[in-house]
């Protein structure tokens, strides 16, 4: 093997700790059966976060309306289960397809303008969809949400139990499959051209990359993945409400990436884990004021820097020389 080959392929090769991590994650519903519900939530949030990372971290598109696709996936999967048939995998596919189509349509709105326009446009799209779900109450149940979504057994065999073990295993399985696909994508020539567009759009154009088309594809794929996350939520909770389109979802998932780090797929996973555990722990200690502590944590994280925060041994070293992390 040659030097350049090795250096290039290093990024795409699976490392031992990744395999261990995924084995541990997949075993979690059985190792921690009493925590299956939160495992499920973490898996869904992680999937939502890595889908945002594809456009935010890898392509440089800022979005404050990623919940639009999450909600689209949630409502489509819930409606499919209610009106057509209760099979979870088919419902998941319906959620992904509908969110992908919506993403393809919306992708034209993020190709032009500055970051600020993109923030506003993505935010606007999510608000429009939320209002649509609210107004079309004959279909969606309006503000009451879509109730009575009953799921059939997974693969025709595994019933969704109250403890959430099946749900957690299902969400983790879907997360793993989509993670593997996304991981391939970001370490491919396609992924490299996305990073090139993120780093320098002018030059990306000047080396022949069809910038608009690439960004549209990335945005559409990310939308589909967010749709999968939404579908999982609706299916595993048996419920879809306007909450799936809410602004706080788009904001939370961005916080997750800020916590875990952008442009690195495990950032979304780690961020989801930290965010959910913190939310869970804090809200059991102070049910009313937990957002205060999350806020404080974020301020500290951003001011101190993630690198330094996870390496406490560097805190007291070379402070006067502006110590590097």
């Amino acid at each position, binding site marked *: 093997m040659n030097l350049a080959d090795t250096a290039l*392929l290093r990024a795409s090769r699976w490392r031992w700790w990744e395999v261990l991590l995924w084995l541990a994650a997949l075993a979690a519903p059985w190792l921690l059966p009493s925590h299956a519900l939160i495992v499920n939530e973490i898996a869904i949030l992680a999937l939502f976060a890595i889908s945002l990372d594809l456009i935010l971290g890898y392509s440089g598109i800022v979005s404050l309306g990623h919940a639009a696709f999450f909600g689209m996936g949630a409502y489509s999967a819930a409606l499919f289960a209610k009106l057509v048939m209760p099979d979870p995998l088919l419902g998941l596919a319906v959620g992904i397809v509908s969110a992908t189509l919506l993403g393809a349509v919306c992708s034209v709105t993020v190709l032009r303008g500055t970051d600020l326009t993109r923030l506003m446009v993505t935010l606007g799209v999510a608000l429009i969809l939320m209002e649509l779900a609210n107004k079309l109450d004959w279909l969606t149940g309006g503000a009451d949400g879509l109730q009575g979504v009953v799921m059939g057994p997974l693969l025709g065999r595994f019933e969704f139990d109250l403890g959430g073990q099946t749900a957690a295993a299902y969400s983790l399985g879907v997360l793993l499959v989509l993670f593997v696909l996304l991981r391939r994508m970001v370490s491919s*020539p396609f992924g490299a051209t996305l990073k*090139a567009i993120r780093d320098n759009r002018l030059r990306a154009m000047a080396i022949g990359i069809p910038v608009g088309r690439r960004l549209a594809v990335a945005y559409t794929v990310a939308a589909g993945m967010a749709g999968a996350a939404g579908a999982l939520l609706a299916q595993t909770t048996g419920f879809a409400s306007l909450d799936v389109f809410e602004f706080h979802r788009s904001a939370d998932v961005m916080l997750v990436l800020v916590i875990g780090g952008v442009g690195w797929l495990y950032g979304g996973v780690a961020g989801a884990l930290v965010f959910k555990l913190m939310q869970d722990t804090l809200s059991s200690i102070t049910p009313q004021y937990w957002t205060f502590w999350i806020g404080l944590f974020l301020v500290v994280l951003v001011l101190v820097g993630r690198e330094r925060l996870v390496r406490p041994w560097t805190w007291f070293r070379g402070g006067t020389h502006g110590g590097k992390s």
Partner: protein
Amino acid sequence: MTSPQATAVLSAQALEMRFGGIVATNQVTLNLQPGARHALIGPNGAGKTTLINLLTGVLQPTQGRITLLGEDITQLAPHQRVNRGLVRTFQINQLFDSMTPLETLAMVVSQRQGLGGKWWQALGARSELNRRCEQLLEQFHLSSVMAQPTRVLAYGKRRLLEIAIALACEPRVLLLDEPVAGVPAGEREELLQTVAALPADVSVLLIEHDMDLVFSFATRMTVLVNGTVLTEGDPDSIASDSRVKAVYLGDVDVLAPGVSAQAMREAAQHG
């Protein structure tokens, strides 16, 4: 007798660009012959950047047409022109800071091979493309820094990478926009060598203020003044053209009256 336009690889015919009432490019005709070493010179504000933007498709001309290898490309988008072999470098480095030179070149070479949309294969999975990257890294003295993020590279190395990226696009026509601008003296020689060693079959249009480089490199020159072609010819005729001295060379005091291009070139080589 064939016209220069018929044999040209890149040809701009009667290009005109108006910004409101201002004519930035006025009836510019420029023919770049196969394997040319053609320099485009002119004082600041002569419209060199506008002309580059017109040729590469960043701007649409208000009149005139551009052909590349006999094909009309006036209406094509920038990336389509690149895919047909018209590539430029930038006066101010335009690099991909988070990527290493190796990743950058692998990405560019893959894109050039039409693999830029492929997502199931890893970047670097094709060893023949990796060999091409190694060759480019070698040629541009970047092998020693190939695995470092571009943002930490020294300015001279960044400048080399700037040109290496363009060459990785396999240009038929290369527009070099002030390749040695801002390069410190110590790193200059390395850069001049690589510019001199560009493949002979690539036609080069050099936009440059550095007269040493212009006279040592170019075999043909076009002088642009106020958006209009003042004159075109070989270096000797340009150096002895009194109008050129008056409007341009006299200005920057590079050529004293009576100094021939030959003397200029010798000075460039020894200096």
